[in-house]
């Protein structure tokens, strides 16, 4: 019986593919990898005693290097590793991910439940890849996997010089058979350009680049290039269509569309029949029109093979429809042709309104924001309003942890001893002065984690004060370290500010949060 819903259960899947292990079992949520790993471990064991001993040894070594590696949350993982089963997702601490990866490379994991990130970059080939489902949440909506995404993962199947073929298995879920994915390498999606003009892009262009270079970005970026190319292709197609239409005109006989012509006559006859229907008969004008048609039809029909004319007329309608579709597309392309110039000017105007620039000249705020690459406006305002230099460092750590953080639905952190209302007020006033929402992304939620870490709390304490997974805590602090480095660079001559952020950064970059192996 499937414990996590839907048949076949992962145990049945593994049973069906047991000749093709090790397998990477892809799912699209972290929780699912853990549930499935747990479920499989109740029924299956893949390792011989000698191998189990090797696993235990590697686990011991890793724990010696980092005590509390498995913590309270991963005791189950530690247990199933000895059965040759594991899971891997972004919620794990880097040290634990590293252990799982090393065990996998040593061929001590037979089924690895993982999320998409396992398929990017570093090559971990397997005998087979399994797709638990073919739909994922992409930050906006649930959607089917693209061909490109599917093959990025599926392509991990097949170890070079080892497996004659790589086996790919897609699970057909009995509850959602309609969601079963079918993919083809022939249908991999083309790469499209999606340039975004950020405040930093505008400041960098104004400060370092000539007008000519600015235009190069706005007029020659990939999206514009692709649109222009498509436009040229459409123009060509339209010219060809016009030629074909002209050619068709010559097919018609001189009497086409006169009362002697079969095509016009059959059209008129049809109209006559329709006017004879009850619902139309009484309408004003109907009688006169019928009379008119009857008179027209009195003309003798031309004796001719009307086929070529009728055929040409049909083709003509076809071509006309294709033409109008292309013209519509052309209008859409035309309406986008100045998008980037418009976006650029919009951000430039905003920066001028906020006194970051004056024409092409960068003012102090602009010079500061030039060195920032995340939430440039919000961070600059925090600094210029004294939120970084003049506050206690633990509070600064809390404030900056929330920059660019969008809380998930279930994220929970115990509130800290600090009041972050002032930041919220600053954010509100920025929004009121016309700064768009996506340039003011901030949340008070992760703050207490950062201030506690600054004050010397242990990683376990951080875990106990929130429901964040280890990998999430790690990335909140690492992102803050990244931001602090940016502010340090932006501080320039302001040595007091620089000392403050450097001090915070050094206190944050320690122990479990330090990048392993570097």
């Amino acid at each position, binding site marked *: 019986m499937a414990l996590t819903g839907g048949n076949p259960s992962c145990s049945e899947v593994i049973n*069906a*593919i047991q000749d093709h292990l090790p397998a990477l079992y892809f799912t699209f949520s972290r929780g699912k990898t853990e549930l499935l790993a747990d479920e499989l471990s109740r029924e299956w064991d893949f390792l011989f005693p000698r191998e189990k001993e090797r696993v235990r040894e590697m686990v011991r070594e890793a724990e010696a290097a980092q005590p509390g590696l498995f913590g309270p949350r991963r005791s189950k993982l530690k247990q199933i590793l000895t059965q040759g089963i594991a899971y891997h997702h972004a919620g794990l601490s880097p040290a634990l991910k590293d252990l799982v990866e090393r065990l996998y490379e040593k061929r001590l994991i037979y089924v690895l439940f993982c999320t998409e990130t396992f398929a990017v970059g570093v090559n971990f080939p397997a005998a087979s890849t*399994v797709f638990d489902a073919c739909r994922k949440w992409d930050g906006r909506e649930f959607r089917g996997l693209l061909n490109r995404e599917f093959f990025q993962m599926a392509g991990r199947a*097949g170890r070079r010089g080892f497996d004659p073929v790589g086996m790919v*298995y897609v*699970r057909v879920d009995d509850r959602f058979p309609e969601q079963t994915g079918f993919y083809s390498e022939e249908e991999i999606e*083309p790469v499209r350009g999606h340039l975004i003009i950020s405040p930093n892009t505008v400041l960098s262009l104004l400060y370092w680049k000539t007008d000519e270079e600015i235009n190069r970005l706005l007029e020659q*970026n990939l999206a514009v290039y692709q649109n222009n190319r498509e436009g040229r292709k459409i123009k060509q197609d339209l010219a060809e269509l016009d030629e074909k239409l002209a050619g068709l005109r010559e097919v018609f006989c001189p009497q086409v569309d006169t009362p002697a012509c079969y095509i016009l006559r059959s059209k008129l006859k049809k109209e006559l029949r329709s006017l004879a229907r009850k619902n139309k008969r009484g309408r004003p004008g109907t009688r006169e029109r019928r009379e008119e048609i009857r008179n027209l039809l009195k003309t003798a029909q031309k004796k001719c093979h009307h086929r070529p004319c009728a055929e040409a007329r049909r083709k003509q309608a076809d071509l006309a429809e294709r033409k109008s579709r292309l013209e519509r597309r052309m209008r859409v392309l035309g309406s986008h042709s100045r998008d980037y110039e418009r976006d650029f000017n919009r951000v430039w105007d905003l920066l001028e309104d906020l006194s970051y620039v004056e024409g092409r000249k960068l003012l102090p705020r602009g010079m500061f924001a030039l*060195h920032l690459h995340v939430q440039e406006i919000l961070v600059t305002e925090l600094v210029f309003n004294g939120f970084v230099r003049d506050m206690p460092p633990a509070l600064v750590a809390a404030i900056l942890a929330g920059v660019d953080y969008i809380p998930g639905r279930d994220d929970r952190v115990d509130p800290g001893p600090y009041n972050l209302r002032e930041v919220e007020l600053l954010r509100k006033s920025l929004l009121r002065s016309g700064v768009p929402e996506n340039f003011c992304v901030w949340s008070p939620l992760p703050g207490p984690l950062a201030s506690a870490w600054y004050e010397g709390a242990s990683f376990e304490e951080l875990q106990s004060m929130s429901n964040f997974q280890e990998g999430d805590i790690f990335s909140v602090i690492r992102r803050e370290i990244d931001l602090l480095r940016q502010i340090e660079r932006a501080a320039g001559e302001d040595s007091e500010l620089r000392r403050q952020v450097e001090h915070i950064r050094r206190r944050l970059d320690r122990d479990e949060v330090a990048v392993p192996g570097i």
Partner: protein
Amino acid sequence: MSVQKDRFRQKAKRRPLRRDAGKPAPGGPIRLDPFQETAVNSLMEGHNVLVAAPTGTGKTLIAEKLIERVLAGGRGIVYTSPIKALSNQKYRDFSGLYGAGKVGLITGDVSVNERAPLLVMTTEIFRNWCFANPEMLDDMTHVIFDELHYLDDRERGTAWEESIIFAPSHVKIVGLSATVPNVREIASWIAEVRGEPVKVIEERCRAVPLEMNWISPEGRVLGEAEAREYVRQRLERRRGRWAVPPDEEAEMAYD
């Protein structure tokens, strides 16, 4: 409940057939494939190169050959990757291959050995350098963009575009990408913005071909035709008494 739990524990776990047990781990490819050979040669001739090949065909090997030659020539080279964790991993790999002294790592939150001849960076950092300190790239002959198809990423693609457009003009572009149908279009775009030709090297064959299968709710392994038929029947059964699609029904009424 607890009785059942105990029974579970006592039950012997299932073991798979282990046909591959004891076989040695496969060694990496030693000789270059023809497509790798072509790519490396074009790079040595000083061309901009775009390599598109399926995962696992050895694009990394091309990068490594190039890095070897550049370092041997006493020049520098930049390697960018889309993900921080990947940059860290690459830094460790390259340190093992070429010696830690030769390799630097810059990812925003980490900065090691910034003056090394081989610099591993995130694409965002490379983009920032192109604006703020292009002189740091004076001695670099190439920039390698791993996973170049990230150009398509809605949030992050901009970093790749700005890097390609604003990389100093003496730096050659090397793009490594998964298979994409419009690789030639991307190449001609790069050629236009760089004002230099870009060679395209495409490998469509996988080193190990894939075999696609589906697994039915009963645990049977199905081929594509069977799977499509299976799904069709399932859906039809779900539609219940309207087993025949409405359109066909209408047509039948005329008969």
